[in-house]
């Protein structure tokens, strides 16, 4: 998934199924049963060396042994028996857990290490992958999720857009590739947040928000290639297998921690079992980052094979880095590498792989063709953005659409975006883009409704100023939309809403009435009628 991702419902996408990035098995090899036996003794040896009397009476026997006994287990069996029975049990259990943590670090020999050379990408398909019961369960969940997304009205029923995405997807899949239990489906999801995700059954979803964000077909191909790699390299299954191991380890650690004995050994176990889950979670995210890196790099290879401009993979990362709403908060751990890092390694990889730089004119042509094909999807996304309160994104994207084609409908959407933007600033300031400011804003978003936010902003001089400017701009754009060729009736509705807010009841009524006449079967006819009635009453 891409940054700012929505978490899909369903186990296969929402549950953490991450893989590790640290060096496998290091430490586990050195940490044997014998050394595990040795651990508790070290504390005791220190005591005996300093000739301090042990604090616990039952440890008195330790003074009988000197340091040399500790390692020579075979020569003093009774010592080890005593230790095992009385003191070391808990430490061994702790050590066992530690070993489990270390063994779970093993990335199934599949994830790449970050230090690996960028050229060393694995083959596109994981040939040796065998389906287990748990994988089949995930597959079943994926099929159900597909059905659910469609049933819930989240899949865009735009045949032209879906066919376009499908064509790009199929051109990227290596010719003649048949993958077990994979049937390729490429669909557009009605979500204004830029995102894409792949299900292990071969369903690839691109949100309308992402379609709007990218500039041309090659950039869309870059995203699809990335998602295709997740399916082809069976990342969901691999990650899920790895996660299950880690969850089991965490639970065992929790059990050991709950029944830890007293004393220093107990304290050590409690500390270890408290810290271990955090380490495990870090490895979960680390593994995920490695898989994302693999998907990025394999994606570039696939783009080159399908004759798309591979440098667009870097450009799409740069686009994703644009935080229009000021909502991408950097967490301590992320399942994706930072975009800066991704841009860096992709640039380095491209330097090694690409021998072709696409001419700007070619890209411009591609951009125009892309906007023409996706215009209806982009308009749909504007409606979703406004409805979701993503007003800044709406203004930004509507402006791009108007720059491309200033027809009545596009002008109407830009007017709508400005009207609903209200007292907010059209762009987030540098101060608002700091991580702490974003966190504060996220907290406020959780507390305040959009109306409350507007009311608060209108009390400030900057808010008032913004509101005035945006209403003026919106009015101007609505009028332009109405004067353009084939004017959209919805511009009358927009003007009506604008005038109603400005307190011009008569003008608002008149615009609403025009709308009802021009769009008699509009879905919001009843709503507008009631507004007219309410305005007449006042």
């Amino acid at each position, binding site marked *: 998934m891409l940054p700012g991702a929505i978490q899909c*419902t*369903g*186990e*296969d996408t*929402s*549950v*953490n199924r991450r893989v590790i990035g640290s060096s496998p098995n290091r430490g586990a090899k050195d940490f044997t049963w014998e050394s595990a036996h040795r651990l508790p003794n070290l504390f005791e040896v220190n005591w005996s060396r300093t000739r301090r009397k042990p604090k616990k009476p039952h440890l008195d026997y330790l003074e009988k042994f000197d340091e040399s006994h500790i390692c020579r287990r075979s020569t003093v069996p009774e010592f080890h028996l005593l230790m095992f029975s009385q003191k070391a049990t808990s430490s061994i259990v702790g050590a066992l857990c530690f070993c489990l943590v270390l063994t779970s670090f093993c990335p199934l020999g599949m994830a790449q290490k970050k230090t690996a050379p960028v050229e060393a990408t694995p083959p596109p398909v994981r040939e040796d992958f065998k389906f287990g019961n748990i994988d089949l*369960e*995930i597959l*079943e*969940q994926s099929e*159900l*999720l597909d059905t*659910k997304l*469609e*049933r*819930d*009205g*989240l899949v865009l*029923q735009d045949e032209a857009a879906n066919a376009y995405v499908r064509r790009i997807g199929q051109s990227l899949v290596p010719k003649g590739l048949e993958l077990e239990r994979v049937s390729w489906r490429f669909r557009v999801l*009605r979500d204004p947040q830029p995102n894409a995700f792949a299900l292990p059954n071969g369903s690839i979803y691109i949100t309308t928000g992402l379609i709007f964000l990218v500039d041309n077909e090659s950039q869309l191909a870059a995203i699809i290639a990335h998602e295709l790699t997740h399916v082809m390299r069976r990342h969901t299954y691999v990650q899920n297998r790895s*996660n*299950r*191991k*880690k*969850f*089991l380890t965490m*639970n065992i650690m*929790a*059990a050991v921690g*709950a029944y830890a*004995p*007293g*004393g220093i050994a*107990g304290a050590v176990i409690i500390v270890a079992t408290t810290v271990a889950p955090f380490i495990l979670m870090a490895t979960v995210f680390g593994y995920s980052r490695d898989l994302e890196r693999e998907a990025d790099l394999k994606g570039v290879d696939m783009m080159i094979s399908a004759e798309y401009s591979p440098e667009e993979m870097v450009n799409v990362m740069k686009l994703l880095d644009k935080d229009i709403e000021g909502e991408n908060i950097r967490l301590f751990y992320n399942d994706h590498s930072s975009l800066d890092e991704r841009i860096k390694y992709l640039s380095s990889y491209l330097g090694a792989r690409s021998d072709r730089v696409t001419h700007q004119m070619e890209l411009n042509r591609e951009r125009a063709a892309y906007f023409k094909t996706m215009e209806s999807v982009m308009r749909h996304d504007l409606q*979703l953005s406004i*409805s*979701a*309160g993503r007003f800044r994104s709406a203004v930004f994207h509507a402006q791009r659409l108007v720059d491309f084609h200033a027809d009545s409908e596009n002008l109407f959407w830009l007017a709508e975006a400005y009207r609903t933007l209200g007292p907010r600033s059209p762009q987030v300031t540098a101060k608002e883009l700091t991580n702490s400011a974003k966190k504060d804003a996220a907290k406020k978003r*959780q*507390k*305040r*409704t959009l*109306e409350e936010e507007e009311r608060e902003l209108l009390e400030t001089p900057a808010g008032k100023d913004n509101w005035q400017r945006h209403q003026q701009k919106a009015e101007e754009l609505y009028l332009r939309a109405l004067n353009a060729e084939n004017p959209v009736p919805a511009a009358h509705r927009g003007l009506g809403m604008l005038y109603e807010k400005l307190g011009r009841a008569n003008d608002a009524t008149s615009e609403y009435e025009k709308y009802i006449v021009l769009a008699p079967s509009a*879905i*919001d006819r*009843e*709503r507008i009628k*009631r*507004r007219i009635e309410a305005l007449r009453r006042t």
Partner: protein
Amino acid sequence: MRLNNSVVVFRLRALILVLATVLLIGFTSPIHAQFLHPKIKSKETTIRTVVVLPAKVNVVRDSMKGPEGMAAESGEMSMRVEKMIAEVLSKQKNVTTLSPPSAASGQGDSQPNYNVADFQTKFDDLLPKIMKKRSDVKKGRFTMGDEVLNLNLEKSTDAIVFIRGEGKKLTGGKTAFTLLVGGVPAYLRLQIGIVDARNGDVLLYTDPIFGGDPTTAVDRLRKALEKGFKKLPAAQATR
């Protein structure tokens, strides 16, 4: 003063027990949490007919190896909750349930289907704000706006019911683990919002909860729902 190890361990366990009790009380208290809009309390608005929008209940199976999705069971659970809410409202509050605006046919005009989806998303956006201060429902603070009219429901519809839920079912191993070590037991928590079909005001918010396997505990679900709507005034029975 030096404390004996066994005393420390005993105190630690006692502390964990107290914390667990406090958490358990905190966990189960929302059973009675119901918040009514002043218009409902003052009987200015009475709910007689409702439309129940498709419920979104998500149940996961928690095993020792982590949570696993239960998409099919979640779907069944959603339908069961929808039906049961309609039953409870009808039997106890004389509220009639009308059919939702559209069933997804997958063909033809997709706009009504999108409309329902968008309202569901709008409620999802509002829900965290309600959760943050549920008692503000009593002040009439939350609204979805007059856009609800775009759903084009029957004119007699007074309110729209939104249902969300999350639950957890434990495997045998995890149940044993929970008993021995502790952890969240099996449960189902619902979040139900009733919204005025004319102006979008949130008229009622309730979040019934019960412990036990959510996929099998039908009676507990019914009881939790009955308690959840306890404060809602009943409509006059039609003759």
